[in-house]
């Protein structure tokens, strides 16, 4: 009798242990991948968000076109207050014209004309961020037109020029080859403790 009880107890204990082990192992088996969060969405549903341009090849540039003269008009209405007449600098921001050749001097002048390696950068930035008081309000045609105007001021598009996806991608920017990828660490300081050169030298 006692033996039987003991047996039962033992069997019960083993079962309980096994159950606990099973339960805990399944608890530990849960990973973040088991949280099926989020909802599927289609690229079509994202079209209004999908505003980026891969600027070297123009991928992502939308249909549409705009001329230098159209851009000049839009600039006068929406941009001139901050950027100044002919984008030469205004109440808020500096010049967006010139600067080519200044990078070998002590005073580098950074403008879309001197700095951007690819012209679609200008379209991308105007479309996502300008005008500052009403970003993402311009039509694609207006963004092309403003790009054409700014690039014309930088002598990169003729006065009668019209830009679309193909034309803006084809522009060869002066600073196309002006970049190198990060290769740091570039300094070679040593941990001198005594008789070291003073900091200034």
């Amino acid at each position: 009798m006692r033996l039987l009880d003991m047996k039962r107890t033992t069997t019960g204990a083993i079962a309980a242990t096994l159950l606990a082990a099973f339960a805990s192992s399944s608890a530990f088996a849960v990973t973040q991948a088991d949280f099926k969060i989020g909802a599927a969405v289609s690229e079509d549903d994202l079209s209004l968000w999908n505003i980026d341009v891969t600027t070297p090849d123009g991928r992502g540039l939308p249909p549409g076109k705009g001329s230098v003269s159209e851009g000049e008009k839009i600039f006068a209405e929406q941009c001139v207050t901050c950027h100044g007449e002919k984008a030469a600098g205004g109440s808020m921001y500096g010049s967006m014209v010139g600067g080519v050749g200044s990078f070998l001097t002590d005073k580098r002048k950074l403008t879309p004309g001197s700095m951007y390696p690819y012209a679609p950068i200008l379209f991308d930035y105007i479309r996502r961020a300008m005008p500052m008081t009403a970003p993402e309000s311009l039509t694609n045609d207006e963004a092309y037109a403003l790009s054409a105007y700014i690039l014309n001021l930088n002598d990169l598009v003729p006065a009668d020029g019209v830009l679309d996806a193909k034309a803006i991608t084809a522009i060869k920017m002066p600073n196309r080859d002006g970049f190198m990828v990060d290769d740091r660490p570039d300094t070679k300081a040593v941990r001198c403790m005594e008789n070291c050169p003073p900091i200034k030298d």
Partner: protein
Amino acid sequence: MDHRKPTRRGGEEGTSASHDAPGSQNRRNFLKGGLVFAGAAAGTSLQAHAEKLAIPESNKQMGREMELKAYGTPSKYEAHVTRNRSDVLVNKQKWSDWSMTPIQNQVGIITPNGLFYERHHAGVPDIDPAKHMLVVHGMVKQPMKFTMDDILRLPAVSRFHFMECSGNGLTDWKAPKSKTVQQSHGLLSCAQWTGVPMSWLLERAGIADGAKWLLFEGADGSAHARSIPIEKAMTDTLVVYGMNGEMLRPENGYPLRAFIPGWEGNVSVKWLRRIKVSDKPWHLRSETARYTDPMPNGKWRQFSMVMECKSVITKPSGGMKLKYGPGPYEIEGFAWSGNGSIKHVDVTTDGGKTWQEAKLEEPVLDRCLTRFRFLWNWDGGPAKIASRAVDTTGYVQPTVADIEKVRALTGFVQHHNAIFPWSIDPSGEVANAIA
């Protein structure tokens, strides 16, 4: 130092303070550390007071009653501790602008959320978390959208990391333009970040073969965006909603931002609304015309995102005064590296001729602010003090001269991680001595 109010020095601690001269807390710490400077232990500290101390007013009345619900604020006596808009380089508008952390006032390694530095490109958006959405699309098996509830449902991770703007120090390369360390180094802060690994969200969408780059894009008026190598996002990048025990502040990305440990702040895109997967980088304005470094051959270094090893003395620093005359002072500051943790910090008090190792205060964490301390007996003469950090890769913090050998220092140059000296004149005034 000047930045500490006298109330912090134990002046209200009753009779136990009566034997101590001002600044005695420093002295007590010194004694605790077993370090006694000749002359420092002698002097005024043991003189008896001639005047009996009155019972403090605060002992004789009830204090302010408990508020039913409140978000606590600092003491009114700390009102001088503020995050200040950039005032050495002054922008003509306050939307694409930045503000600097008063690191000279920071105690410990964590920056309070209300003092965390800011950099915005079109101001601070007001975003309702119930409406916020993060999408992952492009070269994925299934484009996905996530609500804040979705992201909050995932198991969370919390990590301590610094954040530094690539432009920290850009006004002070070759001439001392900043007066205080807040102005010269205040685009630096540190927090405990809470969120989820970005890889978990990318895995929900399923990365397609051939994908190499991601676009992070914000829901602010500039739709600020950066190209990020996918391996970085899969390794240690977080999508965070929490910061120092509470949800992000609006100016730091509420309700959701990217966080890339050790990299320049602007890649940790705030108000994150979109991650696009691609096979190549975008070369946007923010990674060509901005956030690039001028090189001596007229070219520009691009995608220079790691913030290399750096340190600075925050006490004493510019605008402070060694007001107790010759004698013992504690020199303290921060060291940090985007490439690992801090291995050594050395301090010089003679302009760099000799250096001695400072003590690192625990915890010393990976890509996190590390506090160093160094005890110094000022002889009352002119001195030039500076710190130099070494990280776990063996990299030694350079001087401006070291950097100028390999980069062009023209205009407002990014990624200034040089040794930063402060001069001390015989009156004890501390000033920027970068050149």
